[in-house]
């Protein structure tokens, strides 16, 4: 594949994934912070602050999950290599 085209596709993919993350975050934080009582149109101060904190936490979790996933997949790759070496010498 043309490297420029690959770069373009990767950038589009990143945008898609950020949009997907945003949608999931919105849903999760709405469930946690906004109770389903629709008598009043305005958000209370508590609900607003909850949403701010929820977004901060969600983004923190997103970052940590990324690091853990790479850590775990690196560990798995090493384990696989060791297994393959083991079966090779056996």
């Amino acid at each position, binding site marked *: 594949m043309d490297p420029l085209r690959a770069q373009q596709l990767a950038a589009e993919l990143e945008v898609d994934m950020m949009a997907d993350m945003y949608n999931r975050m919105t849903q999760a934080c709405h469930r946690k912070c906004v109770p389903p009582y629709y008598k009043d149109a305005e958000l209370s101060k508590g609900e607003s602050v909850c949403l701010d904190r929820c977004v901060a936490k969600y983004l923190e979790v997103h970052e940590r999950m990324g690091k853990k996933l790479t850590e*775990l997949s690196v560990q798995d790759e090493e384990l696989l290599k060791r297994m393959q070496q083991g079966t090779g010498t056996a």
Partner: protein
Amino acid sequence: LPQLRDFLLVYNRMTELCFRHCVCNLNYRLLTAREESCLHSCAARLVHANHRLMGAYVQLVPSLLQRRAASRE
């Protein structure tokens, strides 16, 4: 690239799942120690579960495809 897309979707789903389950204390902006520990376990469990699932799937699919091919004949 389609594999990268799948991987990134799994990543997003994992984040959502572990967040929903582990983050319950919205009195603070930072993650509490309990939440951090829960997230660590959640991530590891999901990855191990996925591996196990894949192993089982890879084992069972060939016989399934064989049976389908045989029933078509």
